[in-house]
Protein backbone atom coordinates (compact mmCIF):
# COMPACT_ATOMS: atom_id res chain seq x y z
CA UNK A 1 0.00 0.00 0.00
CA UNK A 2 2.78 2.42 0.97
CA UNK A 3 4.58 1.73 -2.26
CA UNK A 4 1.40 2.11 -4.28
CA UNK A 5 1.23 5.72 -3.11
CA UNK A 6 4.95 6.09 -3.79
CA UNK A 7 4.24 5.10 -7.38
CA UNK A 8 1.42 7.68 -7.56
CA UNK A 9 3.77 10.41 -6.34
CA UNK A 10 6.61 9.27 -8.62
CA UNK A 11 4.36 9.17 -11.68
CA UNK A 12 3.10 12.64 -10.82
CA UNK A 13 6.62 14.00 -10.33
CA UNK A 14 7.62 12.57 -13.71
CA UNK A 15 4.71 14.41 -15.36
CA UNK A 16 2.98 11.16 -16.30
CA UNK A 17 -0.24 11.74 -14.34
CA UNK A 18 -3.17 14.08 -14.81
CA UNK A 19 -2.91 15.82 -11.43
CA UNK A 20 -6.52 17.00 -11.26
CA UNK A 21 -7.92 13.63 -12.28
CA UNK A 22 -5.57 11.84 -9.86
CA UNK A 23 -6.83 14.06 -7.05
CA UNK A 24 -10.45 13.41 -8.01
CA UNK A 25 -10.02 9.64 -8.23
CA UNK A 26 -7.53 8.87 -5.48
CA UNK A 27 -7.64 11.70 -2.95
CA UNK A 28 -10.57 10.34 -0.96
CA UNK A 29 -8.81 6.97 -0.66
CA UNK A 30 -5.61 8.65 0.43
CA UNK A 31 -7.50 10.84 2.87
CA UNK A 32 -8.68 7.71 4.66
CA UNK A 33 -5.06 6.68 5.27
CA UNK A 34 -3.65 10.17 5.76
CA UNK A 35 -3.55 10.30 9.57
CA UNK A 36 -2.26 6.74 9.83
CA UNK A 37 0.47 7.36 7.25
CA UNK A 38 1.52 10.60 8.94
CA UNK A 39 1.83 8.90 12.32
CA UNK A 40 3.54 5.92 10.72
CA UNK A 41 6.23 8.12 9.14
CA UNK A 42 6.65 10.04 12.39
CA UNK A 43 7.04 6.79 14.36
CA UNK A 44 9.56 5.52 11.82
CA UNK A 45 11.65 8.67 12.17
CA UNK A 46 11.58 8.27 15.95
CA UNK A 47 12.59 4.61 15.97
CA UNK A 48 14.93 4.36 12.97
CA UNK A 49 18.63 4.56 13.77
CA UNK A 50 20.00 8.06 13.27
CA UNK A 51 22.97 6.58 11.42
CA UNK A 52 20.80 5.58 8.49
CA UNK A 53 21.86 7.24 5.23
CA UNK A 54 19.24 9.30 3.37
CA UNK A 55 19.66 7.02 0.34
CA UNK A 56 18.82 4.01 2.49
CA UNK A 57 15.58 5.49 3.78
CA UNK A 58 12.40 3.87 2.52
CA UNK A 59 10.91 5.57 -0.53
CA UNK A 60 7.59 6.24 1.19
CA UNK A 61 9.23 8.39 3.86
CA UNK A 62 9.91 11.13 1.32
CA UNK A 63 7.05 10.48 -1.06
CA UNK A 64 4.06 10.48 1.27
CA UNK A 65 4.45 14.12 2.45
CA UNK A 66 4.64 15.21 -1.19
CA UNK A 67 1.26 13.60 -1.86
CA UNK A 68 -0.31 16.21 0.39
CA UNK A 69 0.19 18.87 -2.26
CA UNK A 70 -1.10 16.66 -5.09
CA UNK A 71 -4.27 15.72 -3.26
CA UNK A 72 -4.81 18.97 -1.44
CA UNK A 73 -7.59 20.51 -3.53
CA UNK A 74 -9.90 17.76 -4.72
CA UNK A 75 -9.21 15.51 -1.75
CA UNK A 76 -10.54 17.75 0.93
CA UNK A 77 -13.68 18.50 -1.06
CA UNK A 78 -14.71 14.87 -1.44
CA UNK A 79 -13.48 13.42 1.82
CA UNK A 80 -16.81 13.71 3.59
CA UNK A 81 -18.79 12.10 0.82
CA UNK A 82 -16.89 8.89 0.19
CA UNK A 83 -15.71 5.88 2.12
CA UNK A 84 -12.07 4.99 1.60
CA UNK A 85 -9.86 2.12 2.65
Amino acid at each position, binding site marked *: *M*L*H*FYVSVQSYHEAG*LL*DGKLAAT*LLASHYEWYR*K*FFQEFCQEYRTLAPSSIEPEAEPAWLGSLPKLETIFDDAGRRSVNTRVG*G
Partner: protein
Amino acid sequence: MNALISRKFVGILAWLLILSTAGSFGAMFIGLWHRSVGWEAVCAELLLVFVLGLEGIIAYGTFFREESVSVGQRRQLTVGLLEKFTSPEAYIMRAETWRIRKKWLEENDRSCMKYFVHTKDQINSPDEEGRCANGLTPHQNLS
Protein backbone atom coordinates in the same frame (compact mmCIF):
# COMPACT_ATOMS: atom_id res chain seq x y z
CA MET B 1 21.26 5.98 -34.80
CA ASN B 2 19.18 5.08 -31.76
CA ALA B 3 16.08 6.98 -30.66
CA LEU B 4 17.86 8.87 -27.90
CA ILE B 5 20.63 10.21 -30.18
CA SER B 6 18.00 10.95 -32.83
CA ARG B 7 16.00 13.12 -30.38
CA LYS B 8 19.17 14.88 -29.27
CA PHE B 9 20.13 15.52 -32.88
CA VAL B 10 16.68 16.92 -33.73
CA GLY B 11 16.80 19.13 -30.62
CA ILE B 12 20.21 20.59 -31.55
CA LEU B 13 19.06 21.09 -35.15
CA ALA B 14 15.96 22.92 -33.96
CA TRP B 15 17.99 25.28 -31.80
CA LEU B 16 20.49 25.94 -34.62
CA LEU B 17 17.66 26.74 -37.03
CA ILE B 18 15.96 29.08 -34.56
CA LEU B 19 19.25 30.82 -33.77
CA SER B 20 20.10 31.19 -37.48
CA THR B 21 16.61 32.63 -38.08
CA ALA B 22 17.15 35.21 -35.37
CA GLY B 23 20.66 35.91 -36.75
CA SER B 24 19.39 36.39 -40.30
CA PHE B 25 16.63 38.68 -39.07
CA GLY B 26 19.13 40.76 -37.10
CA ALA B 27 21.58 40.86 -40.03
CA MET B 28 18.82 42.17 -42.27
CA PHE B 29 18.20 45.16 -39.98
CA ILE B 30 21.93 45.85 -39.66
CA GLY B 31 22.19 45.79 -43.46
CA LEU B 32 19.24 48.14 -43.84
CA TRP B 33 20.68 50.49 -41.23
CA HIS B 34 24.12 50.86 -42.78
CA ARG B 35 23.32 51.03 -46.46
CA SER B 36 20.32 51.34 -48.69
CA VAL B 37 19.35 48.14 -50.41
CA GLY B 38 16.70 47.38 -52.97
CA TRP B 39 13.30 45.91 -52.09
CA GLU B 40 14.27 42.69 -53.90
CA ALA B 41 17.11 42.10 -51.42
CA VAL B 42 14.79 42.76 -48.48
CA CYS B 43 12.19 40.33 -49.89
CA ALA B 44 14.87 37.66 -50.43
CA GLU B 45 16.12 38.09 -46.87
CA LEU B 46 12.58 37.92 -45.47
CA LEU B 47 11.96 34.74 -47.47
CA LEU B 48 15.14 33.23 -46.04
CA VAL B 49 14.10 34.18 -42.51
CA PHE B 50 10.63 32.72 -43.09
CA VAL B 51 11.99 29.40 -44.40
CA LEU B 52 14.57 29.10 -41.63
CA GLY B 53 11.96 29.96 -38.98
CA LEU B 54 9.48 27.44 -40.38
CA GLU B 55 12.10 24.69 -40.39
CA GLY B 56 13.09 25.58 -36.85
CA ILE B 57 9.50 25.44 -35.62
CA ILE B 58 8.92 22.09 -37.34
CA ALA B 59 12.10 20.61 -35.86
CA TYR B 60 11.25 22.02 -32.42
CA GLY B 61 7.74 20.58 -32.62
CA THR B 62 9.11 17.19 -33.65
CA PHE B 63 11.51 17.24 -30.73
CA PHE B 64 8.80 17.98 -28.18
CA ARG B 65 6.33 15.57 -29.73
CA GLU B 66 8.92 12.86 -29.12
CA GLU B 67 9.57 14.03 -25.58
CA SER B 68 6.15 14.82 -24.23
CA VAL B 69 3.36 12.55 -23.03
CA SER B 70 -0.06 13.35 -24.39
CA VAL B 71 -3.00 14.40 -22.22
CA GLY B 72 -4.81 11.20 -23.18
CA GLN B 73 -1.90 9.03 -22.10
CA ARG B 74 -1.68 10.83 -18.76
CA ARG B 75 -5.39 10.33 -18.11
CA GLN B 76 -5.15 6.68 -19.13
CA LEU B 77 -2.32 6.08 -16.69
CA THR B 78 -4.19 7.91 -13.92
CA VAL B 79 -7.32 5.81 -14.39
CA GLY B 80 -5.09 2.72 -14.58
CA LEU B 81 -3.80 3.46 -11.09
CA LEU B 82 -7.35 3.63 -9.73
CA GLU B 83 -8.17 0.35 -11.49
CA LYS B 84 -5.11 -1.21 -9.88
CA PHE B 85 -6.14 0.11 -6.48
CA THR B 86 -9.69 -1.22 -6.76
CA SER B 87 -8.76 -4.52 -8.44
CA PRO B 88 -9.51 -7.90 -6.82
CA GLU B 89 -5.73 -8.46 -6.52
CA ALA B 90 -5.41 -5.37 -4.34
CA TYR B 91 -8.33 -6.32 -2.12
CA ILE B 92 -6.26 -8.29 0.41
CA MET B 93 -3.61 -5.58 0.51
CA ARG B 94 -6.31 -3.03 1.33
CA ALA B 95 -7.99 -5.31 3.88
CA GLU B 96 -4.73 -5.97 5.74
CA THR B 97 -3.84 -2.28 5.74
CA TRP B 98 -7.34 -1.59 7.05
CA ARG B 99 -6.75 -3.96 10.00
CA ILE B 100 -3.31 -2.50 10.78
CA ARG B 101 -4.67 1.03 10.56
CA LYS B 102 -7.59 0.17 12.86
CA LYS B 103 -5.27 -1.32 15.50
CA TRP B 104 -2.90 1.63 15.16
CA LEU B 105 -5.51 4.34 15.58
CA GLU B 106 -7.98 2.68 17.96
CA GLU B 107 -5.72 0.50 20.12
CA ASN B 108 -2.47 2.39 19.65
CA ASP B 109 -0.91 -0.90 18.54
CA ARG B 110 2.34 -0.01 16.79
CA SER B 111 3.81 -3.49 16.72
CA CYS B 112 3.85 -3.53 12.91
CA MET B 113 6.61 -0.92 13.01
CA LYS B 114 9.19 -3.46 14.13
CA TYR B 115 9.17 -4.98 10.64
CA PHE B 116 10.16 -1.64 9.13
CA VAL B 117 12.89 -0.54 11.53
CA HIS B 118 15.97 -2.68 11.22
CA THR B 119 18.60 -2.71 13.95
CA LYS B 120 21.55 -4.97 14.67
CA ASP B 121 19.76 -6.51 17.63
CA GLN B 122 16.48 -7.03 15.90
CA ILE B 123 16.11 -9.57 13.14
CA ASN B 124 12.75 -9.24 11.51
CA SER B 125 11.77 -12.46 9.93
CA PRO B 126 8.63 -12.38 7.81
CA ASP B 127 7.96 -15.92 9.02
CA GLU B 128 6.97 -14.54 12.41
CA GLU B 129 3.69 -13.44 10.92
CA GLY B 130 1.01 -15.60 9.38
CA ARG B 131 0.59 -15.34 5.63
CA CYS B 132 -2.46 -13.71 4.12
CA ALA B 133 -4.43 -15.23 1.27
CA ASN B 134 -2.21 -13.48 -1.28
CA GLY B 135 0.92 -15.12 0.13
CA LEU B 136 2.21 -11.96 1.78
CA THR B 137 2.37 -11.14 5.47
CA PRO B 138 0.25 -8.26 6.83
CA HIS B 139 3.23 -5.91 7.03
CA GLN B 140 4.26 -6.82 3.49
CA ASN B 141 0.76 -5.89 2.36
CA LEU B 142 1.08 -2.58 4.18
CA SER B 143 4.44 -2.00 2.54
